[in-house]
């Protein structure tokens, strides 16, 4: 997969970096949403702040991982750093699960959105680590090893979170049926 090819050399030209970020933007948006409890406003702010860190050189790509896992790591760290201020400003919105409004009359869409909402709610009930690893593996198609790199945990720990999280999520989804 092209996303997982590590960029060579230390540091990148700004134009090259910009191109990479643009290519990954949709993926980054999904990850920012996951890091911000699916709150669009916070996700936009976090993604913007992550790009700001990259632009100003506070976050540097050192070529030790793929660009995708590096960018995801920056987004995750940024969201965590800003979460302290958000918690104060938006207390009680921990489980914001805003899902797009259904188009009128589209039963299939309504059903799909219900399922998505159920998935988001079930994910919210897991531990943060379990939620993160499942999002990275199933939503972003990363390997468990890459997910461990983004989460800054050992491979063994990521595997444990993955297995337990998967089991817990399946149970929660089953309960809602």
């Amino acid at each position: 997969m092209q996303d997982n090819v590590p960029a060579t050399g230390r540091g990148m030209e700004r134009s090259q970096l910009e191109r990479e970020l643009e290519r990954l933007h949709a993926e980054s948006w999904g990850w920012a949403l996951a890091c911000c409890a699916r709150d669009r406003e916070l996700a936009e702010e976090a993604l913007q702040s992550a790009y700001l860190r990259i632009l100003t050189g506070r976050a540097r790509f050192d070529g030790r991982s793929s660009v995708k896992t590096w960018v995801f790591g920056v987004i995750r760290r940024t969201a965590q750093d800003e979460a302290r201020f958000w918690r104060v400003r938006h207390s009680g919105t921990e489980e914001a699960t805003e899902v797009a409004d259904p188009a009128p009359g589209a039963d299939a869409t309504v059903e799909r959105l219900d399922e998505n909402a159920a998935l988001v709610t079930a994910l919210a009930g897991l531990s943060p680590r379990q939620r993160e690893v499942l999002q990275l593996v199933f939503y972003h198609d990363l390997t468990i090893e890459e997910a461990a790199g983004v989460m800054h945990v050992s491979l063994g720990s990521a595997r444990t979170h993955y297995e337990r999280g998967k089991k817990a999520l399946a149970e929660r989804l089953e309960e809602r049926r």
Partner: protein
Amino acid sequence: MTLPEDDRLHTHFESLRDDERTHVPTFRETWDAAAERARTTPHVRAPIPRIPPVLALAAAAGVLLVVGLVLRSVRDRDSARLFADSTIHVPGVAPSITTWTSPTAGLLRTSGSELLAAPPALHASIVDRVVPAPVQPRGNTP
């Protein structure tokens, strides 16, 4: 090889991803906003430098050492001053035990103590010690 359970989860997450991708803010919009923030806030908060634990410990030990030395020098100076106040100190010569007086001996000196220093002579007044008796002219002696 994937389990049926994994496939189900993949399907769930794909559906969520497709849904969320319909409302992605454009890259240009986000990137330009970040660039604008970088321009308007040129002094971005610098990351706090992390001090290695070894250096932190060494610095703490250094501070303790300096404080200890200062306290010790102050104590030495005070005791030297007390000793100097209580003895006649000749530089280079250690004071004899017989000339030594307690630094607090002055506190035992009370007013009138000289009157009781030695018993008065027979037929003499204790006042004579303080006020000498008037000398009488010889011719008037009976």
